[in-house]
C-alpha cells in the first residue's frame, strides 16, 4: 500500500510532464503565429514599396535626342512659320542621317515621327519663330525620345515579343538601335518629369503642376483647419463647462473623425459647389473640403497635447494674477505647441494623400499647366496618380509609379518633420 501514492505521484508527474510538453509546444506555436503575422505585415510593406520603386525608377531616366536640323527655306515659309510641319522636317532629317530614303507616300517619315517626340518640333518652331533668320541655317534641338522608344531603351519593349504584339515594328527598333549607336541619343536624369505639367504625351508629362496644386490646396487646408481646430480644441479642453452642448460637440467630433472621406466629397459637391458656387476643381474648393475632413483630427491631437500640460502650470499662472485667457495663450498653448504642430503636420500629410473626395469635386479633369490661382483649375498629386493609372498607354504606368514615388517622398518628409519636432521639443513633466 505504501508504494501506491508514489506510483500516483509518478504517473501524475508523467502526465504533467507530458502536458507540459504539449503546453510548451502550444506556447511556441502561438509565438510563431505572432512573429509570422509581423513578418507578413512587413513583407507586404516591402513588396508594396519595392514594387513601386521597381516600376517607377525608370521614370527618372530620360533618353533625349539631339539632332542638328537644317531649316530648309523651301519647307518653312517666312511669312507663315507656324504653318510649317516641323515634325516632318525633323523626321526627314533624322532619316537622312540614318541613310534611309523615304518613299513617295512618306511611310518612313511617319514611322519616324512615331518614335520622335513632338516636343522636338515644338522647340524648333519656338526657336524659328523667335528668330526667323534661322531659316536656311542648321539648328540643333534636343528633346525626349517618344515614350514607346524610351520603353524600348529601358527594356520594357522587347525584340523577342512578336512584331504585331508590340507598338513599334522591327524597322523602328532598328532605327532606335542605330540612333543610339550613332551617339544621337543620350540618357540622363529626367528633370522634365519634375518641372513639366500633365500632358497627353507620356514623355512630356510631369508632376510639377500637381505639386503646385497640392501645395496650394494644402495651404488653404492648413490655414483653415489648424487655427480653427486649435481654437476649438482649446475651448473644449480649457474653457467649456461640462454640459449637454459640449457633450454633443465632443461626440460629434469623435464621429466626424470616422466618417468616410468620400462623404466629405458629397458635402463639398452639394454645399460648396451647388450652394456657395465655389469654382469647381480649384485648390480653394479642395482645400475647403479637406479642411473640414482634417478638422476633427487636428482637434483630437490638440486636445491630447493640451491634456499633457500639467495643471500646476495653469495654477501658477492663475496664482500670480493672469486671467484664464492669458493663462491659456501665454503658458498652456505655447507649452502644448510641439504636440499641436505634430498633430497638425500628420493630419496635413493625411490630407496630402487623400484622393476620393477630390474626385467628387471635379479635380479629375486634365489640367495641362500650373494652376492659375486659388480659384483656377488644378490637379493634385494623388489625383494625378489616379488619372495616369487610368490612362491606356503603357508608358503612363511607369509615370504613375514615378508620381507615387514623388508623393511618398513628400509624405515621408512631412512625417519625419513631425517625428523630429516631437523628439526635439518633447517634454516629460
Amino acid at each position, binding site marked *: 500500500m505504501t508504494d501506491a501514492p508514489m506510483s500516483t505521484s509518478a504517473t501524475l508527474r508523467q502526465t504533467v510532464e507530458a502536458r507540459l510538453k504539449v*503546453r*510548451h509546444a*502550444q506556447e511556441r506555436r*502561438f*509565438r510563431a*503565429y*505572432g*512573429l*509570422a*503575422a*509581423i513578418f507578413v*505585415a*512587413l513583407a*507586404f*510593406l516591402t513588396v*508594396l514599396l519595392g514594387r513601386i520603386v521597381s516600376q517607377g525608377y525608370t521614370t527618372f531616366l530620360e533618353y533625349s535626342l539631339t539632332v542638328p536640323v537644317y531649316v530648309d527655306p523651301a519647307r518653312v515659309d517666312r511669312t507663315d512659320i507656324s504653318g510649317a510641319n516641323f515634325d516632318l522636317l525633323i523626321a526627314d532629317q533624322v532619316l537622312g542621317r540614318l541613310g534611309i530614303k523615304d518613299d513617295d507616300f512618306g511611310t518612313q517619315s511617319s514611322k519616324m515621327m512615331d518614335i520622335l517626340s513632338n516636343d522636338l518640333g515644338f522647340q524648333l518652331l519656338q526657336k524659328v519663330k523667335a528668330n526667323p533668320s534661322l531659316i536656311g541655317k542648321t539648328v540643333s534641338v534636343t528633346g525626349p525620345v517618344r515614350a514607346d522608344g524610351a520603353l524600348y531603351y529601358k527594356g520594357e519593349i522587347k525584340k523577342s515579343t512578336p512584331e504585331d504584339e508590340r507598338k513599334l515594328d522591327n524597322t523602328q527598333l532598328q532605327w532606335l538601335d542605330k540612333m543610339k549607336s550613332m551617339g544621337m541619343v543620350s540618357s540622363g536624369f529626367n528633370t522634365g518629369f519634375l518641372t513639366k505639367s500633365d500632358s497627353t504625351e507620356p514623355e512630356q508629362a510631369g508632376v510639377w503642376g500637381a505639386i503646385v496644386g497640392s501645395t496650394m490646396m494644402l495651404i488653404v487646408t492648413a490655414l483653415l483647419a489648424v*487655427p480653427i481646430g486649435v*481654437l*476649438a480644441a482649446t*475651448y*473644449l479642453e480649457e474653457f*467649456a463647462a461640462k454640459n449637454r452642448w459640449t457633450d454633443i*460637440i465632443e461626440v460629434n467630433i*469623435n*464621429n*466626424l473623425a*470616422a*466618417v*468616410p*472621406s*468620400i*462623404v*466629405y*466629397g*458629397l*458635402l463639398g459637391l*452639394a*454645399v460648396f459647389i451647388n450652394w*456657395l*458656387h465655389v469654382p469647381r476643381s480649384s485648390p480653394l474648393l479642395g482645400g475647403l473640403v479637406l479642411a*473640414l475632413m482634417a478638422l476633427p483630427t487636428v*482637434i483630437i491631437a490638440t486636445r491630447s497635447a493640451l491634456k499633457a500640460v500639467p495643471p500646476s502650470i495653469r495654477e501658477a499662472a492663475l496664482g500670480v494674477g493672469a*486671467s*484664464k*485667457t492669458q493663462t491659456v495663450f501665454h503658458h498652456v498653448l505655447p507649452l502644448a505647441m510641439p504636440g499641436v504642430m505634430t498633430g497638425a503636420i500628420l493630419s496635413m500629410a*493625411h490630407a*496630402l*494623400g*487623400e484622393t*476620393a473626395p477630390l*474626385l*467628387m469635386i471635379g479635380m479629375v479633369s486634365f489640367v495641362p499647366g500650373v494652376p492659375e490661382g486659388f480659384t483656377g483649375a488644378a490637379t493634385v498629386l494623388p*489625383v494625378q496618380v*489616379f488619372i495616369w*493609372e487610368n490612362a491606356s498607354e503603357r508608358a503612363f*504606368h511607369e509615370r504613375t509609379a514615378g508620381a*507615387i514615388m514623388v*508623393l*511618398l517622398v513628400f*509624405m515621408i518628409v512631412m512625417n519625419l518633420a513631425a517625428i523630429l519636432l516631437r523628439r526635439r521639443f518633447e517634454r516629460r513633466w
Partner: protein
Amino acid sequence: MLTWVALLALALFSGATFFAARGKALAAVGGRPIGLHSLPGYYGGYVALWVAVPAALILLLAAGFGGSLEAGLLRSSESSALQALDAQQRDVFYNDAVTLSQGGQPSETVYEGPQKQALADAVSKAKHLRSQITYGALAAAIALALAGVAFAYPKIRPDFRARNQVETWIAGLFILCSVTAVLTTIGIVGSLVWESWRFFQSVSPVDFLFGMEWNPQIAMRSDQYASSGAFGAVPLFIGTFLIMIIAMVVAAPVGLFSAIYLSEYASPLARSVVKPLLEILAGVPTVVYGFFAALTVGPLFREFFNGIGGLLIGSGLDGLGQYLSQVQNQMALVAGAVMGVMLIPFVSSLSDDIINAVPQSLRDGSLAMGATRSETVKKVVLPAALPGIMAALLLAVSRAVGETMIVTMAAGLQAKATINPLDTVTTVTVQIVTLLTGDQEFDSPKTLAAFGLGLTLFLVTLILNIIALRIVQKYREQYD
C-alpha cells in the same frame, strides 16, 4: 480686387485706432499703466476689434455671396422675351448675361430679336447690380468702421474693463470655432438628406433598399427601352459586404497577432523598430494601394488562377478549370486582399493600445499560477480585452466599407449579387464615384442616386462608429 484694397485699408485704419485708443488710455493716467484697469494694449485692442470685425464681415460677405445675390436679383424681374426658353436655356441666358457684363466670353448660344434685346438689358442690369452691391458693401463697411470708433473710443477711461471685453470677443471666436465641427455635421446630414429626399421622389426607398437590379443608365429619349434605369442597391451592398469580409479575413488575424506579439513578446528594441514600420504602412495613401492592387496584385492573381484553371481543364474538374482560366483582373479577392493589407496597421495599433490597457496585475496573477505566456494571453488578456478588440474590428469594418480608392481602381463596375470572391463585384463607394465623375446634371436621378448611396454609407459607418466608441468607453471605465 476692390475687396482686397478695402480690407487692407480697414486693417490700416483699425491699426491706427489701436494706437489712438492705447494712447488715450495711457494719457488719461499720465503715462503710468499702473493706474489702468487692464494692460494698455487691451484698450487699443478693444477699439480695433470694434472697428475691424463688423466691417470686415460685411466686405467678406459681399465678396462671397455678392455673385449669388446678383444672380438672384437679376432673375427677380424676368423679361417677357424669355418665356419661350425652358429652364436650362434660361440658366444659360443668365450665365451669359453675367459673363458678358464682366467682359468674359459667353457661350455659343445665338440670341435673336427680342431675346437679343433682353440680353443687352440683362447685361446692363447685371453691371448696375454689381456696382450697387460692391459700392453698397463698401459704404456699409465704412459706416460700420466709423460707428465702431464712435461706439468704442469714448468708452476708453482708466477704470474701463478692457481686458474682460476683449476676452469676451475671444470667447466668441472660441465658440465659433467649436461650432464649425457641428456645422460640418449639419452640412453633411443636411446635404445628404436633402438630395436623397429628391432622389426618393423619383425612386421609391423600398426599390432602392431592396431592389436586386442596379443599372443607373438614364435613356436619352423617353421612349427608349428601359428608359427609367434601375436603382436597386442590393447588389452593391452585397459587393461591399463581400469585399469587406475578405479584407477582414486578411486584416483581423494578421493585425491581432502582430498586436499580441508586439505587446506581449517583443523586446522594447523590436517594438521600437516594428511600430514605426507599421505606421508607414498606415501612412501610405490609399491611391497607392489602389495602384498596387490594379497593376500588381490583380494580374498576379489572375495568372495564378488561370494557371490552376489550365491544369484542371480536361481533368475531373473540367468545369472549374474552364471557369478559373477565365477569371479577370477585377475580382473581389484582389480589392479585398489589398484593402486587408491596408487595414493591418489600423487593427494592430488599435488592438495594441487596448491590450496594453489590460492591467499588468492580471498577467502577473496568471503567470504566478503557472500559466504559460500564451495561456495568459488566451485565457486572461484576450477575454479582458475582448470588448475593446471587437470595437477595433468594428472600426476597421467601418473603414473597409467607406474605403474608396482601392475599390475604384481595382474592383469592377458590374453590379452582381454574388458572393464568389473570384467574380467582379462593385461597391457603394465605387458607384458614388462613377455616378459623380464626368458631366453632372443636378436634377437627374443618376446623380441624386449617389447621394442616396452616400446617405446609406454615412448611416452605416456612423452606427458602427457609435457602437465601437460606446464599447471602448465602457471598457475603459472598467479598468480606470
